[in-house]
C-alpha cells in the first residue's frame, strides 16, 4: 500500500470514532454540536501522556478515552436537562469554550533539549511516539482499525442489547420511555459518557497519527461533520455513521478528478439524499428489512418455540 492510501484509510478510521460518538447521542434523540470537544480533550490528554509523561500508547489512549468520558459526563449532567436545540447549542458553546481554553493552554516540558507540549494557539507539536517506537504508518493504520473493529463489535453488541434498545426508545419517545420504568436522565448521561469515550479514543489516535494538534482543528466544522455522518449514512445501525464517513472522505477522494467542484457536488448530493431518506441511507426500516432477510436465510437457533397456550413444543 502506498502512503497516500494508508493516509486516507487512517483518516477514515480516526474520523469514524467521532462519527460514532455523535451517533450514540443521535440514538437517544439528542443532537450534539460538541463532540469535537471530547475529541480534542482525548487528543491532548493522550498526546500529553506519551510525549510528556512517557506513557505507552495503549495507556495513553485509554487515558484519553477516560478523560473524554469523564468530561462528557460532567457536561452531560447539567446540559442534558435541556432538549433539542437548547442542548445542541449548549454543547456547541461548551465545545468552543474548550477550544479557546486549549488556545490558552501552555504546558511545556523540556525533554531531550527541546520544549515539548501544548503551546497555546500554536498547537502541540512533536507527539513523536510512533517515531520513537518505530511504528510504521501501515502498522499504525492497522492499530487504528483494530481498535475500530473492537469498538464496532461492542457497538453491534450494544445494538442488540437491552441498553441499545433503551437508547432507541429514549430517542423515539422520551416520556413513554420513562413510563416503561427507564430512568431517562441516567441513560442519557450514560450515552453522553460513551460518546465522550469514543471521541476520546478517536482523538488520541488522531494526535498520534498526525503527530501535532492545533486547537483550531477542533472547531464547529468538525462537530457538524461528525453529526452529519450519522445522518447521511443512516441511524438504523452503527454501520451508518461509518458509511457516512466513507462517503464523505472516501467518495470525495475517488472523484478527485472533480477536485474544485467536490464540495458543490457533495453538498447537493447530501441535500437530495436527505430529502429522499431523512434518516439516512441505512435507516431503521431498511436495517430491519435486511435483518429479516438475513434471518430467512440463516434461521437463528436458540429461540424458544412456544405453542399457542404457552407450552414449549
Amino acid at each position, binding site marked *: 500500500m502506498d502512503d497516500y492510501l494508508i*493516509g486516507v484509510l487512517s483518516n477514515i478510521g480516526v*474520523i469514524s470514532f467521532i462519527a460514532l460518538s455523535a451517533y450514540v447521542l443521535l440514538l437517544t434523540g439528542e443532537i450534539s454540536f460538541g463532540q469535537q470537544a471530547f475529541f480534542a480533550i482525548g487528543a491532548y490528554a493522550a498526546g500529553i501522556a506519551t510525549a510528556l509523561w512517557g506513557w*505507552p500508547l495503549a495507556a495513553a489512549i*485509554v487515558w484519553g478515552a477516560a478523560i473524554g468520558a469523564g468530561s462528557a459526563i460532567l457536561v452531560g449532567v447539567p446540559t442534558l436537562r435541556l432538549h433539542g436545540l437548547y442542548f445542541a447549542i449548549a454543547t456547541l458553546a461548551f465545545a468552543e469554550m474548550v477550544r479557546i481554553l486549549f488556545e490558552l493552554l501552555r504546558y511545556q516540558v523540556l525533554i531531550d533539549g527541546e520544549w515539548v507540549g501544548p503551546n497555546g494557539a500554536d498547537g502541540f507539536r512533536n507527539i513523536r511516539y510512533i517515531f*520513537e*517506537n518505530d511504528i510504521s504508518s501501515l502498522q499504525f493504520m492497522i492499530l487504528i482499525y483494530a481498535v475500530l473493529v473492537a469498538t464496532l463489535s461492542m457497538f453491534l453488541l450494544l445494538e442488540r442489547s437491552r441498553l441499545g434498545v433503551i437508547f432507541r426508545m429514549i430517542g423515539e419517545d422520551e416520556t413513554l420511555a420513562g413510563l416503561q420504568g427507564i430512568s431517562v436522565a441516567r441513560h442519557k448521561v450514560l450515552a453522553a459518557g460513551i460518546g465522550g469515550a469514543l471521541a476520546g479514543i478517536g482523538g488520541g489516535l488522531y494526535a498520534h497519527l498526525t503527530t*501535532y494538534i492545533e486547537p483550531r*482543528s477542533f472547531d464547529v466544522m468538525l462537530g457538524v461533520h461528525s453529526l452529519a455522518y450519522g445522518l447521511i449514512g443512516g441511524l438504523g445501525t452503527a454501520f451508518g455513521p461509518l458509511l457516512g464517513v466513507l462517503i464523505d*472522505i472516501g467518495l470525495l*477522494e475517488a472523484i478527485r478528478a472533480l477536485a474544485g467542484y467536490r464540495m458543490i457536488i457533495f453538498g447537493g448530493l447530501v441535500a437530495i439524499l436527505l430529502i429522499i431518506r431523512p434518516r439516512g441511507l441505512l435507516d431503521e426500516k431498511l436495517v430491519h428489512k435486511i435483518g429479516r432477510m438475513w434471518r430467512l436465510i440463516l434461521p437463528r437457533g436458540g429461540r424458544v418455540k412456544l405453542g399457542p397456550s404457552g407450552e414449549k413444543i
Partner: protein
Amino acid sequence: MMTTSWRFAVIMMLAFMLFHPQTVLAQVRAKAEVDCQPAAEKLQYDCIIKLTNSRTNEQLAGFDLMVGADMPSMPAMHNVRPVKADEDQEKGTYKARIVLEMYGDWALHLDLIGPVRDRVVKVLRFERDRVGEPTSAQTPAHQRH
C-alpha cells in the same frame, strides 16, 4: 456478571499497559526550513526544504523525504497525495512540488525516511500568489482560517 476475576483481569490488563517497559530510541531530531513559491499551475507550489539536525545544526543528507499536507482547520478531511522530494546538490536541501486542494492554511508533513524516521510539521498559509505565515488566533474570528 462482573465477578471479581473479571475485575482482576481488567486491572491486570490496565496495569500491564501502563507499566510495560517501552523503548525510547535516542535519535536525531530534524529541523526544517521551508520556503515555498507558487508554481505556474494553479494550486501548485515549489518548495525548497533545508533539513538540519536540531542538536548539531549540521545538514541532514541522504534521507528519503516525503512531503504531505493536511489542513488544520479540517482535520483528516483533506488528503493530499504525498510527494517525494528530490535531494539537491547542496547538502541537506530538498525540492518538491506539492499540489494542494484549496487555498488556506496547510500543515506540511515532512516525513524523513532513512537512518532514522521523523516528521517535521510546518504550518504555512498558501495563497494564489504568495505563501506566508499562517493566520494567528489574534485576528478577528471571521477573518481567520
